C-alpha cells in the first residue's frame, strides 16, 4: 500500500474512533451498547431499535452529538488553517492563530463582553469572528505595504498581534469584573455546542475547505521559493492571497465557536508529515481528518477527566500538545543530522 493511501486509512479509522468515543463518553451514564444501538436506529432502513430511554436519547442526540460534530468541524478548521499557513510561509512553526487572527478575535470578544455587558454573550462569536478577520486584514495590508515576501508578512502579523493584545489587556485592566468571563473564553470551550451552532458554521467550513484544499499542489510549488515558482509558471502572490484568505476564514470560524484553542494547527500537520511525507497534496486533506479526530478526543477528555467539572479545551490541547511538539522537534532534528 502506498504511503499516502495508508495514511488516509489510518486517518479515517482515527476519526471514527474519536467520534465514537466522543459519543460514548460523558457525565451521564449511558451504556455503550445502548448508545450504539441508539446511533444505529437513526440510520434509515436499518432494523435496530434504540436501547436508550427518551431522556438519555436526548442527552445523546441533543448534547453529546452536536458537541462531537462541532469539535470535529473546529478541529478540522484549526489543523487545516495551520497547515495552509505553514505552506504559504514555508515555515513549519506557523500556527493558525498567526497573522493577527487570534489577537483580533481576542480583542473582538473582549470588546463584546466588556461593552455589551450581560447581553454580550450572544455577540461574542460574531465579535470574535469579525475581530479575527480584521486582524488578518490589517496584518496583510501592513505586510504588503512593506514589500513583497513572506518574512515581511510574518513580522507584520506579529506586530499587529502584539498591538491588538495590548489594546485588549488595557480594556481588561479597566473592567476587571469581566476578567473571569474573558479568561474562560480565551482558554477555549465547546460547552455551548448545539446543532444550531454546528449548522451555522457549516457554510464557512465548506467555503474554507473549497478555498484551501485545491491549493496543495500550488503550495508544493511555492516550496522552491517565489522566483523559481514563477519560473515554473506559478503565481505566488495570487496563491498566497487565496490560501491566506481561506485559512483566515477557517481560523476565524473556529475561534468564533471554540475560543482560542492553541496547538492544533501545529501538532496535527506535523504528525501528518511524519506519517505521509511533506507534500501538501496529502498534508492538507489529512490535516482535516486528523484535526477533526484530535479535537474530538481532546474535548472528550476535557469534559470527562474531572467530570462533572470541565477543563478548558485549550488547556487539554496544550497539555497534550506541548510534550508531543517537543518530541516532534527532537525527532525531526534526529532525522536531519
Amino acid at each position: 500500500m502506498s504511503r499516502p493511501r495508508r495514511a488516509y486509512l489510518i486517518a479515517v479509522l482515527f476519526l471514527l474512533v474519536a467520534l465514537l468515543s466522543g459519543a460514548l463518553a460523558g457525565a451521564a451514564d449511558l451504556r455503550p451498547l445502548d448508545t450504539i444501538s441508539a446511533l444505529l436506529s437513526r440510520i434509515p432502513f436499518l432494523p435496530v431499535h434504540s436501547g436508550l430511554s427518551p431522556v438519555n436519547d436526548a442527552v445523546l442526540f441533543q448534547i453529546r452529538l452536536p458537541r462531537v460534530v462541532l469539535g470535529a468541524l473546529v478541529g478540522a478548521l484549526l489543523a487545516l488553517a495551520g497547515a495552509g499557513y505553514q505552506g504559504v510561509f514555508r515555515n513549519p512553526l506557523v500556527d493558525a492563530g498567526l497573522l493577527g487572527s487570534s489577537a483580533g478575535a481576542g480583542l473582538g470578544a473582549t470588546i463584546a463582553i466588556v461593552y455589551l455587558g450581560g447581553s454580550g454573550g450572544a455577540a461574542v462569536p460574531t465579535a470574535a469572528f469579525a475581530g479575527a478577520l480584521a486582524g488578518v486584514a490589517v496584518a496583510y495590508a501592513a505586510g504588503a505595504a512593506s514589500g513583497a515576501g513572506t518574512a515581511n508578512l510574518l513580522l507584520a502579523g506579529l506586530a499587529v498581534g502584539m498591538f491588538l493584545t495590548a489594546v485588549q489587556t488595557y480594556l481588561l485592566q479597566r473592567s476587571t469584573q469581566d476578567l473571569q468571563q474573558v479568561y474562560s473564553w480565551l482558554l477555549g470551550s465547546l460547552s455551548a455546542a448545539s446543532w444550531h451552532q454546528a449548522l451555522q458554521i457549516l457554510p464557512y467550513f465548506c467555503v474554507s475547505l473549497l478555498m484551501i484544499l485545491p491549493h496543495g499542489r500550488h503550495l508544493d510549488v511555492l516550496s522552491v521559493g517565489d522566483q523559481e515558482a514563477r519560473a515554473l509558471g506559478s503565481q505566488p502572490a495570487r496563491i498566497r492571497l487565496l490560501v491566506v484568505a481561506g485559512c483566515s476564514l477557517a481560523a476565524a470560524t473556529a475561534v468564533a465557536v471554540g475560543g482560542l484553542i492553541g496547538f492544533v494547527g501545529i501538532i496535527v500537520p506535523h504528525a501528518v508529515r511524519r506519517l505521509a511525507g511533506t507534500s501538501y497534496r496529502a498534508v492538507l486533506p489529512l490535516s482535516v481528518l486528523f484535526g477533526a479526530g484530535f479535537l474530538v478526543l481532546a474535548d472528550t477528555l476535557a469534559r470527562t477527566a474531572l467530570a462533572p467539572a470541565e477543563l478548558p479545551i485549550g488547556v487539554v490541547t496544550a497539555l497534550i500538545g506541548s510534550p508531543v511538539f517537543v518530541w516532534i522537534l527532537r525527532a525531526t532534528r534526529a532525522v536531519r543530522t
Partner: protein
Amino acid sequence: MTSNTETWAPGHGPDVPALIVDRLSATLDGSPVLHSVSCGVASGGWLAVIGPNGAGKSTLLRALSGLIPYQGTVIVHGRDAAALSRRELSRRIAYVPQNPTFPPDMTVAEYVLLGRTPHLAYLAAPGHADRRAADEAMELLVLAGFAGRRLATLSGGERQRAVLARALTQRARLLLLDEPTTALDLGHQQQALDLVDRLRRDQGLTVVTTLHDLTAAGQYAERMILLDRGSVAASGTPTVVLTEERVTAVYRARVSVTTDREGRPVVTPLRGSVG
C-alpha cells in the same frame, strides 16, 4: 520525405531563431543594470553569457525568463515574450537559477514533477502523462533509482541532475542555466556541461548559460556575448570574443589566450593582477 518542415510547430522551425533580444534594458532597485543589450540564438544553438561579477549576466537571464521587468523586446520562437502569459512563457523557457532551492524533505520524484506546473490547469492534479514526462526526464539524467530519495540526501552533482530533470520535465525548448557548474568539482562540471550538450543535440533544445569558466564556455558554446557593466562589450564566436586584450580589459585579469587542437580558445590566468 520531401521536407521536414511539417514536423515543426509554427515558430519552431530550424530557421526561426529560438531567441531574439532587442535593446533590452533592466533596472534593479532603482539602479540600471542592463543597457540596451541585443543578442540572439539560433534554434538548437548554445549561447554563453560571460562577463565579470556584477556585469548583469544573471539579471539578463532573469529578464529573459520574465522574472523581472525590462524595457526592450524579447522574441521567443517567434513570439513576443511580453505578450505571453506566465504559464505560456514557462512552457517555452525553462530557467535554472545559480543556487536553486531544494526543499530538504521533498523526494526527487516530487521535485521533478514540479516541472509540469506550466502544463497543468489551476485545479488539475498531475496525471499519467505528467508522471511519464517526469519519469522520462529522470531516466535521461540517470536518476531513475533516486525517485524516492529525499533531496537532502543528494550530492551536489545529483542535485544538479535533479534540477536539470525538472527543467526537462517542463518540456520547454529553450533552457536558461545560470552558472550550471557552481559547486561542482572539475569532473562533475565536465559531466554537467556534457550532459547539457547531449540534451541540446538529442532533444533539439536551445541553451543559454552564464559561465565564469571562460575556457569551458569556449568549449561548449557556439556563440558568446561578453557583458561589461551592463552593456555588450563583444559578441560572436568564442574565437572572436575571447582575445587577450579584451579579457584583460573587461575582467582586469592578466591572462594568456591560446588555442587547443580544435582551434577553440583556452584562457589561462597568469600570476600578477592588472594594477
